């Protein structure tokens, strides 16, 4: 995984964050992500993120569950091991619906959780760089990816003028890695985090 340089701006109010996101985007900077302590309504829209495909995945998992249930029950009870339950026909669909429903839900739920973890790069032992610890508490942290043309000082000044209460520059791992937080310590050495 490659290390990249990021400019980080911290905001303490939603009402300031939204216009700031708009300003930064119109100025042409590339927002890596905005980390917030809670789900902010409409922020994905403001950031111009595309709609998630998680629900499409969920539909496919659900259909898989439905066909698994119907396929296996009908194969078992009609072909492989027909049994007589209270004189009902071997192919007795109504009796299978509850199981089919449960398997549909199970497949959809488990599949979507795993897909969600994959999309967010969350897994046991996987580490990711934290841009600011207070993003889990009370700060909205906007992270902008720098290119070789970006003037870091200008950008920091621009963020401050847009209402950021603190800004800093960090060189950090963009993706995830396995192991300890060793890598993160070196990234902090390279940068000058402003202690709030």
């Amino acid at each position, binding site marked *: 995984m490659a290390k990249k340089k990021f400019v980080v701006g911290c905001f303490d109010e939603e009402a300031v964050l939204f216009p700031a996101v708009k300003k930064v985007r119109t100025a042409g900077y590339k927002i890596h992500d905005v980390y917030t302590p809670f789900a902010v*309504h*409409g922020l994905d829209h403001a950031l111009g993120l595309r*709609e998630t495909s998680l*629900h499409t995945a969920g*539909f496919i998992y659900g259909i898989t569950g439905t066909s698994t249930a119907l396929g296996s029950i009908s194969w078992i009870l009609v072909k492989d091991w027909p049994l007589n339950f*209270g*004189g009902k026909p071997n192919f007795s669909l*109504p*009796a299978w*619906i*509850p199981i089919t429903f449960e398997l549909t839900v199970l497949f959809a739920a488990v599949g979507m959780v795993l897909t969600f973890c994959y999309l967010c790069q969350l897994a046991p032992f996987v580490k990711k760089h934290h841009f600011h610890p207070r993003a889990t508490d009370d700060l909205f942290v906007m992270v902008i990816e720098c290119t070789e043309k970006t003037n870091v000082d200008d950008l920091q000044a621009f963020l401050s003028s847009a209402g950021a209460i603190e800004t800093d520059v960090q060189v950090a791992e963009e993706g995830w890695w396995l192991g300890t937080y060793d890598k993160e310590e070196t990234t902090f050495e390279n940068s000058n985090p402003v202690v709030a």
Partner: protein
Amino acid sequence: MASIRDQFEIPGKMKTWSLALIGIGGAALLYGMFTKGFSADEHEQTHFWGTLMYNTIFWTLICNASMFFICITTLAMGGWQQSFRRIPEAISTMVPIFGAITFAVLMYVVLGHKHHIYHWLDTEAVAKDPILKGKAGFLNPTFFVIWTTLTIGLWSVLGWRMRQISREADASTFDNESGARYILRGTIRAALFTVWFALTVGSTVPWLWMMSIDAHWYSTMYSWYTFASSFVSGMSLIALWVIYLKNKGYLELTTQEHLHDIGKFMFAFSVFWTYLWFSQYMLIWYANMPEETVYFKHRVQGPYKGIFFLNLIINFICPLLILMKRSAKRNYTLVTFMAVLIIFGHWIDFYQMVMGSLSKEHVTLGWLDFGILAFFVGCMIFFVSRSLAAKPLIPKYHPFLKESIIHQV
């Protein structure tokens, strides 16, 4: 607020169309009444009064579902419905009107001793029948009349009180204290309506009005099934009016976000209806006891087979697949199409619930059904548009209005 168009004016075309529907439907109704309703033939009588019964019960229940929607969202401290709450309120003004028709029809059937519709009215048959004797405490004309009067009367009164409190939000602003008191008063009135709703639609009234046609048969699911049916069509009716007013340029504060939530209700309660449909069906299918399967015999294997399964396709498969996507619930055309389809589907559902028991040998669906349907649709459009025009479309000083304006899904 000055720029908001909050006063609905009834377009001339709408008035013409609704009066035309009332005219056509009324003609069919009267013609049917004199040729069938008052004819000497018991079958013709049963056909006419049964058809009128399921239509009037259906429309009363789906208009009452609007008031239930207002009350549950109020009880849940909901804010999102404020920008369009005057629409379900206007629809709920139909409850006294359709309620009166329902009352008149049911009284004619019960007091006129139409035991071909309600078998338990036949005192001689009841005396010889241990099952009906056991049910006589519930299924008797006195209880029927009292309970029906109470039901329709209290729906109308409690609903009217709920609409009155909504009117207060037009008059003047609230400060913190008076606003809190206002919300509390609304909550109490909503709770009263909801309790009465649970005692009627949620349990006794569908048993009394419709299930007692099959006097020997019973299903504890029946009332919830009826409730689910009426609530999902009630939500569809609200969606249709919201979309109509949006298209006419009213309801500026109501957006796709609100429509999305109404669409979610339509989707979720279609699935809920199916859950009850299936629970009722599967338990009876599994136990396979003759006194229970008698209800499904002519529906699943007899002449009603087509309607019975069409019902499931329209009311379950279509909403499930079409309304599942987020973009579908935010699309005005698709929601309109689905709302019409769902209302039609549940009307057919009510048809087979009532007529499936009254006319077991052959399906009666024909000009009379569609004529009476036209009459009720015409009445609904005519009176709802009048109540919409009677007051502002937005409760502009309601403490929760802002929540509705910034509502986002």
